[in-house]
């Protein structure tokens, strides 16, 4: 048992040292595996902003994750093909420069979030869950049946996208790129949570009427948070595409949305670092159980079930001692 601050710090230190363990154990795959954990954690942090703090249960975050991934894939595809991208009358060159790729992913996933959020926020509760799912499913089916970028077969990037002076194909370099993004996401979300927008978001999770009667427009607050959330998750998707050097419709599927959501809940909502632990736990368990039995999903289910039934609020609450109710204010 320790304080949340200390645990958070330990998590970051531990992650930082992962490549070292990897080298010591002479197993570079550990680093790759943790890149995945870090990326999913970023996606989860994005989702948690609106899910945990804003009470907006999006069952469609795969849309952003997938869009980020596809943007990355498509830019690289056109770069390798030397065929420009045509949107109406405009033509764009593809690129393999990560800085551009990231900017595009952020912009497009924000735009998508603006669109989806604008319509979805007319509804609340379970209807919100389902309308976000609906939008994601549309994209999913679209991506499957649209042949240009591989349809269900997906799209392979032959190499990871580049960043000047760095070798992104090196697992350790790539891991640290993800790690830096994780830190940025954490700092950014932490700022938001303590900001006027953040407090408005947390308040409108509980009581729109009160929020309006102090002069705040809860719709705007939610929409902006939704956009930020979508953008963060979109960026994670972009990293994911580069990690695998591959994108396919599976990352737009409802199972993907569910997975992001599950690792957020598993780690502990209302906690900034919850998704990191959630992702860690989920992926490591999957690896570990998958190694010992063919029926690993059965055991994974059982462990998750026990966790939900007997941990108050995710794995985080196992490890720290301060009360979980006190989380909404800092």
């Amino acid at each position: 048992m320790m304080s949340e601050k200390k645990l958070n710090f330990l998590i970051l230190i531990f992650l930082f040292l992962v490549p070292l363990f990897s080298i010591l154990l002479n197993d570079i795959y550990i680093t790759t595996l943790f890149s995945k954990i870090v990326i999913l954690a970023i996606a989860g942090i994005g989702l948690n902003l609106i899910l945990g703090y804003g009470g907006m249960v999006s069952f469609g975050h795969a849309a952003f994750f997938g869009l980020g991934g596809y943007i990355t894939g498509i830019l690289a595809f056109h770069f390798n093909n030397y065929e420009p991208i045509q949107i109406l009358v405009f033509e764009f060159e593809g690129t393999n420069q990560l800085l551009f790729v990231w900017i595009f992913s952020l912009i497009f996933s924000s735009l998508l979030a603006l669109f989806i959020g604008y319509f979805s926020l007319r509804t609340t509760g379970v209807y919100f869950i389902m309308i976000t799912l609906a939008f994601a499913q549309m994209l999913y089916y679209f991506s499957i049946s649209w042949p240009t970028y591989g349809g269900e077969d997906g799209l392979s990037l032959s190499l990871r996208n580049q960043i000047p002076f760095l070798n992104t194909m090196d697992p350790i370099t790539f891991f640290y790129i993800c790690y830096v993004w994780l830190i940025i996401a954490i700092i950014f979300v932490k700022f938001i949570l303590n900001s006027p927008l953040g407090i408005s978001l947390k308040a409108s999770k509980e009581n729109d009427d009160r929020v309006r009667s102090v002069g705040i427009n809860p719709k705007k607050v939610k929409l902006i948070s939704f956009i930020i959330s979508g953008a963060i998750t979109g960026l994670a998707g972009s990293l994911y595409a580069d990690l695998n050097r591959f994108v396919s419709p599976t990352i737009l599927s409802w199972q993907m949305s569910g997975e992001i959501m599950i690792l957020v809940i598993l780690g502990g909502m209302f906690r900034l670092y919850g998704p990191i632990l959630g992702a860690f736990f989920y992926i490591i368990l999957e690896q570990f159980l998958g190694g010992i039995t063919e029926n690993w999903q059965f055991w994974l289910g059982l462990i998750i079930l026990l966790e939900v039934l007997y941990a108050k609020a995710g794995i985080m609450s196992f490890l720290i001692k301060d009360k979980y109710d006190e989380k909404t204010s800092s």
Partner: protein
Amino acid sequence: MEFQLLIEQFLNGLQFGTMLFLMSAGLTLVFGVMGLINLAHGSFYMIGAFGAALFAEITGSFFIGLISSFIVAMFAGVITEILVIRKLYKKDHLDQVLATFALILIFSEGIRWLFGAYPLYLNIPAELNASVSLPLEIIYSKYRLLIIAIGILIAFFLYILTSKTLLGIRIKAGQNDRGMISVLGVNIKTLYTIVFALGAALAGLSGALIGAIQSVEVGMGEPVLILAFVVIIIGGIGSIKGAFVGALLVGVTDTLGRFLLPELFKLFFDNADANLIGSSIASMSIYILMAIVLIFKPSGLFGERSA
């Protein structure tokens, strides 16, 4: 395009709709009325189908299979409710999501463990494996007519159960304020077990009924789950009428979309492209329908606007 075919496709849509209703019937109870987000609903659908396949094989009788599907799924429902679900009512909706997701893993892998990875055999009995002629020279499968009949029957039964009986009112009250309804002297715990088990049993029955014309395999429940949620949301949570109308709407949209959209696009594109684009949009059609309904009626077609 002949008029005859259009009518038949419309009927097919209605038929698919009743089938969807049958799939979502149990979910309407558990999710719509009790307010429990139960992702594992599809698992009961699967359990029912496997139960039916097993007992139909042992006894050689499809009907015994059907009855077993109901009983087996109900039994699974009771156990699940007592061991797991009961502990979730008080918790956050999201804990329900997580726990029932875990149940999916457990049930799916459990079934695969027991029955292996290949689909099982469950087919309709010879006496139902025939077609009847309807007016307008439409030929229709007997078994599908049976499904329609059962769907309507269950719809009617659920409608009576939830809106005309005390039981229905009590479940809704329990969803609103569990503590209060029990302070007023209602044993909500047992009531919920019964209702959950009934929901599971209905899921199991429909799994068997539909499994007989589709396929009985691990994972058969998940697509159904999503479809069933779509149906209930379009109709409006808590409304059986809504679920029924929603199911028909989805059925017709999907069927006619698959049929008409490629034709429509042939007006603008050449054959192959029209086929592709048309069927792409057709596969999105029910989600487009759902989004449109929710944009204009944020709590579904027949949903109550309660905070």
